[in-house]
């Protein structure tokens, strides 16, 4: 359930009001940043209920550290980093508990629930996205996060040079457009 995209000013305002004890500001902050947190978790191969738990744990970190947030505008990137760290910590613990042979392939695609989509084009986009490389999926998730992330923040999250993001974005979008699932939506105008 995505919230409206928060501007940096709105983020700063909500963080400030939450620090002063305004519960409704905290709730708006959660709704407005949930997409970013979930984008940070979606690339990991964990069950949906565990993903929800990790989402929750990420906000526990935020509620504990709300007073120490220096740059509210950078909060989406902070949340994504925290969510990713939570997921990595969980996967490390799971690896210690589960025989390696029983572990599913790390990096397998997110289970898409197409029943949540309500038209043919959106279902096709979801299917095309599922068939992209995991690197493209990861980049496109970050490029579509709300509130939006800067290229510098995305480069840091992906641990890649910032200069590589533009060319990769072009390649990934081209792959998406040319996916067999979406080719069917190309109309040929009469000549």
């Amino acid at each position, binding site marked *: 359930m*995505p919230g409206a995209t928060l501007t940096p000013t709105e983020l700063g305002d909500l963080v400030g009001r939450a620090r002063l004890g305004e519960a409704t500001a*905290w709730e708006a902050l959660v709704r407005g940043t949930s997409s970013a947190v979930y984008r940070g978790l979606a690339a990991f191969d964990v069950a949906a209920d565990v993903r929800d738990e990790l989402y929750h744990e990420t906000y526990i970190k935020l509620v504990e550290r709300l007073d120490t947030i220096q740059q509210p505008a950078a909060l989406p990137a902070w949340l994504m980093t925290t969510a990713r760290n939570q997921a990595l910590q969980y996967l490390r613990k799971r690896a210690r508990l589960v025989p390696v042979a029983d572990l599913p392939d790390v990096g397998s695609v997110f289970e*898409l629930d197409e029943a949540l989509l309500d038209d043919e084009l*959106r279902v096709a986009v979801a299917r095309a996205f599922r068939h992209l490389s995991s690197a493209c999926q990861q980049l496109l998730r970050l490029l579509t996060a709300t509130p939006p992330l800067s290229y510098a923040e995305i480069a840091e999250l992906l641990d890649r040079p910032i200069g590589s993001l533009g060319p990769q974005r072009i390649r990934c979008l081209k792959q998406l457009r040319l996916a067999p699932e979406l080719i069917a939506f190309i*109309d040929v105008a009469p000549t």
Partner: protein
Amino acid sequence: MPTHPFDSDDDVLALLGDVLDSIEAPSASAVEGAEQLFALRQLDGDLMDLAADSNETSLAQRGTEAGRLLRFESGGCQIEIDAHFGDGVVTGQLTPGGVSAITTVTSAGASRFDSDALGRFLQPIAGRGLHRWSVRFADGRICVTPIVRL
């Protein structure tokens, strides 16, 4: 001339973002739980470190253990928590001792009680949810634990 329903990159990303928001979203109960976390924030004091936890693998093993031992530390103050889920109680030990005021906050609300002169306390627990303790020690220091899920 072929045309595509989304010719510009911005249009593609906007559509994809909308699709991902539909299919990769937290459950309503997870969002509600995150919203309710704010009740756990209303504590001022020195944030303690979790120094020991009998359930290091908390997320992966949650719900399988009969009890939980936790030790929190900050500077010279220490809180030890021993949760007995079967009995529905937490026993605790504060260091330094002396009668201290303890506040326990859960997402359901806060409760306040005192330790005995040796820094010991006994507290009923309703369940395994999120907990946070704040202690005003006899010397006036206030120490607050991080939020933990019992």
